[in-house]
């Protein structure tokens, strides 16, 4: 498979996963806001904080109202991680590699992009956030489901899967981190109904609440962390994502599990091993926030080594459209 095409499918998939997570995240927070007696900014601010783009938001929007946060995270064309920007980039990537993916995938992505461009979309997101974000999430899931059902398990598939899993691991760690930011202002909420509501919200943000309950019934911080970080079978748990991402790498390179033949496999293999032998007590001792920070750093490094291993090409001048068109059309 062409390196450029592999790179493009990988990012297409990362952007889709990112968009889906943002949609779910906003929707859960919208529901949480209805339950918690927090002021608007305390409730909506952390959504921006966990993205790491708080300063940009502050500078451009000022106050973290529900409307501002939704506008920023959903529609802002100048914020590269807004849902709209993610979908636009995913679609642009898909457009470049339409020959490598199924038409079904392209069409659902194209439709989502066209829908988001409608002005009615912005009105709906404010007026009925639940319906709107649920729909976006469903379209993203449709994309994932169609990929599962229409793609041969070839390299393109493994790169799509790899992009999705690395992105998802990172997002799950960030959802867990929201709790850290939410807790800080009111430490005496710990152990109150609000605490349990917040932990439930974290689970909902990762579509994990029901599956969690099947394993643990009661909400406890240790169990939530155990489930979302270390569960080997829940598809949004970090350990699951890392292990399956590593499998994708082995499928791509043909090397044996338990070994490595390139820096990407080495980086992910190490991270998988760390998670295989981790326990939650250590994490809390270490500080959950710090532990998650470290995980995110390692995931980023793994992503970089994927780039270096498969996609790094000798420098090429970027292609830019020229007004004095270089082509003739017949």
């Amino acid at each position, binding site marked *: 498979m062409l390196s*450029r095409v592999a790179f493009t499918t990988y990012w297409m998939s990362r952007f889709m996963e990112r968009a889906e997570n943002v949609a779910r995240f906003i929707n859960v927070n919208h529901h949480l806001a209805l339950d918690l007696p927090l002021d608007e900014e305390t409730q909506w601010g952390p959504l921006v904080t966990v993205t790491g783009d708080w300063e940009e938001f502050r500078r451009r929007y000022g106050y973290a109202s529900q409307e501002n946060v939704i506008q920023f995270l959903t529609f802002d064309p100048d914020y590269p991680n807004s849902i709209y920007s993610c979908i636009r980039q995913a679609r642009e990537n898909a457009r470049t590699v339409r020959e490598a993916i199924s038409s079904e995938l392209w*069409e659902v992505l*194209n439709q989502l992009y066209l829908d988001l461009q409608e002005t009615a979309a912005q009105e709906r997101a404010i007026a009925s956030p639940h319906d709107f974000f649920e729909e976006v999430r469903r379209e993203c899931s449709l994309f994932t489901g169609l990929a599962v059902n229409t793609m041969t398990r070839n390299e393109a598939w493994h790169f799509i899967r790899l992009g999705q899993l690395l992105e998802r691991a990172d997002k799950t760690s960030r959802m867990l981190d929201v709790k850290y930011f939410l807790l800080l202002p009111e430490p005496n909420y710990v152990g109150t109904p609000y605490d349990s509501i917040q932990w439930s919200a974290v689970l909902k943000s990762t579509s994990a609440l029901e599956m969690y309950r099947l394993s643990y019934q009661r909400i406890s911080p240790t169990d939530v962390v155990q489930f979302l970080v270390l569960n080997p079978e829940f598809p949004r748990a970090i350990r699951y994502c890392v292990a399956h991402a590593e499998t994708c790498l082995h499928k791509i390179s043909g090397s044996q599990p338990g070994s490595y033949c390139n820096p990407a496999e080495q980086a992910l293999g190490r991270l998988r091993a760390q998670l295989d032998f981790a326990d939650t007590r250590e994490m809390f001792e270490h500080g959950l926030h710090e532990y998650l920070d470290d995980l995110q750093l390692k995931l980023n490094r793994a992503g970089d080594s994927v780039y270096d291993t498969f996609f790094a090409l000798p420098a090429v001048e970027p292609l830019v459209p020229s007004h004095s068109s270089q082509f003739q059309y017949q």
Partner: protein
Amino acid sequence: MELATYETEGFFDELFTASGQPRSIAQPLIERINQMPPGEMRRRQTAADRVLYQMGITFTVYNEERTTERVLPFDIIPRMIEARDWVRIESGLRQRIEALNLFIQDVYNDQKILKDGVIPTELVLSSAAYRPQCVGFTPPKGIWCHITGTDLVRDGDGVLYVLEDNMRCPSGVSYVLENRQILKRTFPGAFSTMKIQPVDDYPDRLFETLVSLAPTHVDAPSVAVLTPGIFNSAYFEHSYLAKQMGVELVEGHDLIVKDDWVFMRTTRGLERVDVIYRRIDDDFLDPKSFRPDSLLGVPGIMDAYKKGRVALANAPGTGIADDKAIYAYVHKIIKYYLDQDAILPNVPTYLCSDPKDREYVLANLDKLVVKAVNESGGYGMLVGPHATQEERAVFAEKIKGAPRNFIAQPTLSLSRAPTLVNGHIEGRHVDLRPYILYSNPIYVMPGGLTRVALRKGSLVVNSSQGGGSKDTWVLQD
């Protein structure tokens, strides 16, 4: 529906006779349309447009302010051609392509046609499309023009003329294939009763044509489509054809030439490429052989090509045969190589490089269409009767400054076909571009792209200038 009151307004109409009666081939469809409840055609048109957007069948338009993605406007009323007519068109196109291919081979090798004085040597060698780099070269099987899209127009007298031969990178075939898919959804009933010749096998035939060019020692040839990239207005087509054939779509920087072999950069290292359907003009193909400032091409690919290690379609240098000044000689070319009379007529053409012709052209600019010999897509063109006095004066100066670069033709009264415009059906001017593959035997796609000038009265059908397209139905006997 209002087709009952449709007016041909004195133009030759593809679906109606001069007296306003449906032609027999169009009768079944027109009856269907006439029986539809009001608004039904509009509803089907809207549904078709929505499908185009959903499928993202778009082309990109660049201008100074911004870049926009557009769908090529598509009209759901098909253009129809009788089987009998088609047989003649098909054999005429085969004849033309065969002769033009022999011409290219001759120009770059023995130059017999020039030595025999059939075409002025100066006219050929001065063409911007002439490539000295190809002198002495014979491509695989002696085939230069693997893929051609020839433009045909019907004049007021009902005669079909060849307007131009597009032999470099003719585009539009993807629209033919997609238009057909959409019309099958729009008029399923018509398809089951009307015996319309299929076009869907084009990608298979294109693939076979390309594979047959591979160097003979290669067992399982690797084929790729080479595109200038996502910014090219025909990118959709490049990607579409690659997808339909199941081959890689590559950009210049995906390829690398090593020891005169061409490779793709893949996730598993370098993989050899044997055949390239290149959708990049000669000029930009190889900065080492052609324009050194090209960023789109592949340095060294011409060396690999000349050593027979990679095949290129169409062959570099092919453009010499669709220079619009050479066009004027196509009938002589057919006679010279095949000893046959041309089956399809040419539009009378005045060469501005010829002093007598030039004088006539300058004196009759208000009646003529003037075209730059090496441009296409409706650019560099003057439609005399529709131009202002000033525009004509500007063109007159251009012609005097570089006479070799211009030809002129009488303004044809292009035929029309009924077209849905804002919910009404009105006549609009059309042309036709069938696609021809130089395989064995030469394949002519039954039908092709019917382009339609959507602006009332306009004769310019190019998509860059407000044109749209229609499906083309060639009926079986």
